[in-house]
């Protein structure tokens, strides 16, 4: 559904590209994760999906259609995206905020249609934010705010959902709830593309993982392909081991201490 083909991305005044020749794809029905150290180009890939950065080389396509040939509206109807950071300039009522997800489906003067209302209600239900639809965005906790943003993306609809670090600042329970929701959405047939630092959770939930290192793809494959101690140690430049969790059977990364603890 979403495909990056040999993509090179460079910021206006930068000497070296932020993303250099990356190819990866996120098919329907699966969670595809992008991981990598800070500054490895993960969020740059997401910004390119928004058309905020045009590839110097290579193509980004949605279902085979190059993204540059789609208008922003057309792209937004296919792919819903939750950017990394967001702070409304003026506080909004949660329900109004979720309703903004319907922008790509309305006209200049059109009000809320029955379709819009149904999409908003089902998105709020799905993301578990029904209790605070009437609250203002400034009154939400970090976890509630992330869920409200996911609800807006669900109201937006489309076959693909892209999230840039959706579980940053979330506690274990909220984090697991988000991953379970993404898993359910993928099982229903959506393409989920997820940028995350939570390697252990990603290894349990994602079908495939793309590991970025200094703008290039260090590995792209199943969790077992990517969660290798030698590879991750080299990319993250930190001593670590990868074992297998006896309870869940997934590979688990354990970072080591430089010196033995006292």
């Amino acid at each position: 559904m979403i495909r990056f083909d040999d993509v090179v991305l460079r910021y206006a005044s930068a000497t070296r590209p932020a993303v250099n020749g990356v190819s990866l794809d996120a098919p329907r029905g699966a969670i595809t994760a992008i991981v990598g150290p800070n500054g490895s180009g993960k969020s740059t890939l997401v910004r390119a999906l928004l058309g905020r950065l045009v590839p110097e080389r290579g193509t980004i396509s949605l279902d085979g259609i190059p993204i540059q040939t789609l208008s922003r509206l057309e792209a937004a109807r296919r792919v819903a995206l939750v950017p990394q950071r967001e702070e409304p300039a003026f506080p909004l009522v949660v329900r109004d905020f979720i309703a903004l997800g319907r922008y790509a489906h309305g006209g200049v003067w059109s009000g809320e249609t029955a379709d819009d209302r149904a999409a908003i209600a089902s998105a709020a239900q799905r993301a578990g934010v029904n209790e605070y639809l009437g609250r203002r965005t400034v009154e939400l906790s970090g976890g509630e705010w992330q869920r409200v943003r996911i609800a807006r993306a669900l109201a937006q609809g489309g076959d693909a959902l892209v999230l840039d670090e959706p579980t940053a600042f979330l506690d274990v329970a909220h984090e697991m709830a988000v991953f379970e929701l993404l898993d359910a959405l993928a099982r229903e047939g959506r393409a989920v593309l997820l940028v995350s630092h939570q390697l252990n959770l990603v290894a349990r939930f994602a079908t495939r993982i793309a590991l970025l290192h200094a703008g290039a793809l260090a590995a792209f494959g199943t969790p077992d392909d990517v969660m290798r101690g030698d590879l991750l140690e080299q990319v993250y430049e930190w001593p670590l081991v990868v074992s297998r969790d006896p309870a869940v059977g997934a590979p688990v990364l354990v970072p080591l201490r430089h010196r033995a603890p006292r």
Partner: protein
Amino acid sequence: MRPRTWIALLVALLVAALAGLALGPVSLAPGTVWSALFGNGDANAIAIVQTLRLPRIALGIVIGAGLGVSGAALQATLRNPLAEPYLLGVSGGAAVGAVTAVALHFTSLAVLPIAAFAGAALAVTLVLLVARAAGARGDPRVLLMAGVVVGAFANAAVMVLLAGAPGDTVRGALWWMMGSLSDATWQGTRWIAVYVVIGGTLLLALGREIELLALGEDPAAALGVDVERATRRVYLAASLLAAVTVAGAGLVGFVGLVVPAIVRALGARSVRSVMLGAAIAGGALVVAADVVARTVRAPAELPLGAVTALIGVPFFLSRLRRMT
């Protein structure tokens, strides 16, 4: 906003307008105003109400509406509750355009707004370039600093343009630079109203995009907005509105700052309702400020811009304190 809040805003506008008709160097009783409105009673009263005060109030409403809508749109698009055309130097740029047109003997209120618009569009471009060069697009204070600097530059440019003009012209121009409704005529007000309606409709049509731009550029793009195009359109339409008000009444500052904040505090939620509410409240504020300008030191008249600044500056400072 609840229906009764809308009604309250309209009542405030009506009260301000009635006060504007009754009060001034010559105070008229409500009954006298009423008859004069329909051309009955004392000939002097009829002349004062119909020829002097009514066009003045109409111009005040139109100017206030333009400033309110422009401020509301700029605040949301720039994600900055302190943004408004005067503080952003947009009005100053419009003044340069208007003074240039007058110096070239184009004085019709059909043409003057276009010259003012050219100046305003140039100023807003300059302000955004300066702010971007400072590299802190996210910091609302940098943008305001850029606006104040461009505004000071515009003032200087106006002074240069006026150098060598006859004393009366300079005095007239300075008076106009402080904002005033005293030259209101029906014909001029009609032109200003046409431009305000055009600019206001453009911004209302952009309401959904403005709503999303207030979330930030990346979220707006994610939801389907062509950020560069939408932003450019908002700046142009907001500059048009600000420029028209400058052509009609000179530099009236702070209305675009105060009014959207009041309307939001009254419970307006969507950007469109903030803009509509700001249009009504802006009209009421400018008409009320003009009543103050005409009555406090009657028969002398205070500049309208001075009155709105006396209201706006404390408001600005309290907002700034809350931000930092």
